[in-house]
């Protein structure tokens, strides 16, 4: 009997130690995000003081967001640019990689393996090293300093990961399923849309999340390729706010901008965590 209580006490102690560590570590990882979120709802004057305590003392306020709205041509224009770029990147990436994944999975054609290796191997090459030629190519195409131009770059950067994911997704679907449909006389595109698409939807979700996060958060290419202030995406605009390009730095406004940039990523991740982690581990397991 005393031995049993000793074991129980030791287990309880272990559990306290375990969760003590877990909760402190969780706090450290979440705190900066929470701190920023809380400060973004302080009145401007309070946000210009050190965030101790982090929560608004002088009342909840959306003043920082309103101040941010007046930077440059207005934050909603920049948020709109970001949204258009990300949405277009997601849609285009899904369509192009869906088609290519199907092609690489189900058809035989000349140079098939060479083309697949070509696309996948671009993952090894840092896009940072080809930004100057990309700038010149987009200029030649009349797409420099345009949102469609940057979308084309983002879609291309998503190709190796997305096509790898989609080909694997199609490979996992038994051939008999589409053979049956083909015998019934359905066209290739109809089979892809009606029969295959629902079966590879988890892969599409993974591809879409990665395309969204990458394009929503991308900074360097946008900084270089978007030269007109009206075309800025949120990260470029916020970096300009931080560097004082729009006058004195209003730190409350910076926090509201950070919230605007973070919120969609956090919400999307919390809702679709499963598909995100699947994409992450696909590379690790292979």
């Amino acid at each position, binding site marked *: 009997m005393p031995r049993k209580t000793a074991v129980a006490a030791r287990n309880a102690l272990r559990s306290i130690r*375990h*969760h003590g*560590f*877990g909760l402190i*570590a*969780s706090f450290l*990882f979440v705190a*900066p*995000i929470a*701190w920023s979120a809380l400060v973004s709802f302080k009145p401007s004057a309070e*946000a210009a003081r*050190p*965030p*101790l305590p982090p929560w608004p003392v002088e009342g909840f306020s959306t003043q920082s967001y309103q101040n941010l709205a007046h930077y440059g041509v207005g934050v909603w224009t920049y948020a709109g640019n970001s949204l258009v770029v990300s949405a277009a990147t997601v849609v285009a990436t899904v369509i192009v*990689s869906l*088609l*290519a994944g199907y092609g690489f999975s189900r058809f035989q*054609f*000349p140079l098939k393996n060479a*083309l697949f290796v070509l*696309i996948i191997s*671009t993952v090894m*090459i*840092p896009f*940072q*090293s*080809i*930004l*100057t*030629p*990309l*700038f*010149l*190519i987009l200029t030649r195409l009349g797409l420099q300093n345009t949102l469609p131009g940057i979308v*084309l770059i983002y*879609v*291309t950067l998503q190709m190796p990961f997305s*096509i790898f994911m989609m080909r694997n997704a199609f490979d996992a679907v038994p051939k008999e399923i589409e053979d049956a449909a083909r015998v019934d*006389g359905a066209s290739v595109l109809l089979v892809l849309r009606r029969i295959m698409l629902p079966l590879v939807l988890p892969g599409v979700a993974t591809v879409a999340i990665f395309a969204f996060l990458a394009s929503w*958060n991308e*900074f*360097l290419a946008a900084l*270089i390729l978007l030269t007109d202030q009206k075309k800025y995406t949120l990260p470029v605009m*916020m*970096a300009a706010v931080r*560097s004082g390009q729009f006058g004195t730095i209003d*730190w409350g406004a*910076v*926090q509201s*901008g*950070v919230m605007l*940039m*973070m919120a969609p990523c*956090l919400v999307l*991740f919390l809702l679709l965590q499963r598909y*995100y982690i699947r994409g*992450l581990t696909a*590379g*690790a*397991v292979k």
Partner: protein
Amino acid sequence: MTQSQTSQGHTPRRRGARLRRKQMVGLLFVAPAVLLVLVFFVVPLGMAFWMSLHNWPLLGRPRFIGFANYANLMQDERFWAAMRFTVYYTVIVTIAIFAVAFPLALFVEKARPLTRFYRTAFFLPVVIGFGSASLLWAWLMNVDVGLFSPLAFRLGLTEKPVNLLAGFDTTFWSIVVMVVWKTAGFNMIILLTGLQGISSEVQEAARMDGASYGQRFRRITLPLMRRTIALALILSVAGSILAFDQFYIIADGGPQNSTVTAVYWIFSQSFVSFRLGYGSAMSMVLLVLLVTISVVQLRLLRTPEGM
């Protein structure tokens, strides 16, 4: 439709035509992707090399100068400073990330109460962008309105407010802490997949034989995770060599250009000074470095699991 079905594959010529048609369909499916990669990746890659052999101003005619850009690069003290700093940062930040990510992976390995919550919490900073994270930490590090300096001051740890961005060391280590915060969760998940790949029977058998936790970790866990560790290591090294956002947004390359990374240097040569050829030469050096790392990565991943 009915006709093609009745005559299906009757003559060799027809069969050949059908095969060619099927091949064409396959090519059409992959064509958009191939076109994108050719126009926006392969062509620019060739151009980058071509440009690196020229004196290439933004406006005006490029002049072919052979390998002079590369020769100048070797003499350029600021190029070497950027390379040295990038390597220094990569080594330090990779060690720091592993020192945090490995314990976290071990911590969240077994399914216990709250484990899912812990995994999500540690992973949260990974999904926000480097841009947002940098803006957030630029504020936390600010001497007047930030968190760290006022907090340390109020707790009596410092005698007066400390401007973290004033000196190299405080700037550098603050950014290292920020990057660890931002990326530890990513490496935790990668390492976790490796940990979960080790069969619990092996661990159990070793425990029955009286192996201590430390022994099991060194003799079983680490060797069996070699591939996963190599993958996480190389992803972290490649990512760190290409670092830009945090040094640009938080420190503006300062103080006194002491935190200018390789990509930052290419950026300022190409798009601030508009020496496009010179910037391209540096790009090619960076590219060779990273491709070498990736090839090593593939090698390591191909070797059989285990010892």
